[in-house]
C-alpha cells in the first residue's frame, strides 16, 4: 500500500547557533518509526550541537516512540551531549511519567 506517511507524521529540523530543534507533528507510531530514526541519526551523532525535540504538535506516541527517545538519550549521554524535549502535551507527559523516561529529560542540575 502506498502510505501517505507525511499526512500522518512529520519531523522538521531547525538548526541555528549550535542548537538543533526537531519539530514533530502527527502520530509517532510503529509505522513511522524508521522515518523518525532516519531523521534523527545524523543529529544524534553530532555532539557539538544541543539537540532538542519539540512535541507541541505531536498527537500520539507509544512505546515504539518512547523506545527511540530512550536510545537517543543513551547515545547522547554516552557522548556527554545534551538531548531535551520542549512543549510536551499533557497526554504525552503522562506517558513519559508512567514509563519513567521523564526523569532523564530533567535539566542536568536536577539529575542524579
Amino acid at each position, binding site marked *: 500500500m502506498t502510505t501517505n506517511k507525511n499526512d*500522518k507524521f512529520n519531523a522538521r529540523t531547525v538548526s541555528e547557533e549550535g542548537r538543533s530543534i526537531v519539530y514533530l507533528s502527527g502520530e509517532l507510531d510503529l509505522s513511522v518509526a524508521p522515518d523518525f530514526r532516519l531523521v534523527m541519526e545524523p543529529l544524534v551523532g553530532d555532539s557539538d550541537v544541543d539537540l532538542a525535540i519539540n512535541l507541541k504538535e505531536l498527537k500520539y506516541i507509544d*512505546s515504539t516512540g518512547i*523506545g527511540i527517545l530512550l*536510545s537517543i538519550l*543513551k547515545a547522547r549521554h554516552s557522548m556527554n551531549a545534551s538531548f531535551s524535549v520542549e512543549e510536551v502535551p499533557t497526554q504525552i507527559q503522562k506517558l513519559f511519567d508512567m*514509563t519513567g523516561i521523564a526523569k*532523564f529529560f530533567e535539566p542536568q542540575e536536577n539529575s542524579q
Partner: protein
Amino acid sequence: MKADQTVTLNLPATADYVDIVRLNLYGIASKMGFSYEDIEDMKVAVSEACNNSVLYAYGQEGGLVEVVFGVNGEELTITVKDEGVSFALSQEASDAPTLHNKELHDVEIGGLGFYLMQALMDDVRVASESGKGTQVVLTKRLTRSEEKV
C-alpha cells in the same frame, strides 16, 4: 441497559494498519461517552497490543490481527487476537519493566508494552497458547459524570 454489541475488525498484521484500529477505538469509545483522556489512554493500550502482534506473532509471511470491540453500557472490552507464535510472559518482565529505579546506562530498550497496557486500562488479560497464538483482552470501565436515573 441495552444488550451487548460487538464490532469486529480483521486486518493485516502490518504496522501500516494499526492506525485504523485507533480510528475504530476513537469512534466507538466516543459514541459510548468516554472522556478524551480515557480515549487517549485506550488508544495507546490497544496499539501496544496490536504492535506486538505485528512485531512478534508472524514471520516473513505475515498474518492477520482480529480486534473485537465489546460494547455495553458499563464498559468497553477490546480483544486483540493473532494466530502467531505463542510466548510466556515472564514474571520479571511484568514486574518491573519501567525506568523509575534505573540509571540511563542500565536501561534496556523494550518491554514497556504490557506495562503500559496495565497502567492505562482497568483490566488486562493475556492468553498465549501454543499453536493458538495470542489473545489480549483489555477492559475500561465507563465512569459517568452524571449518574443515570
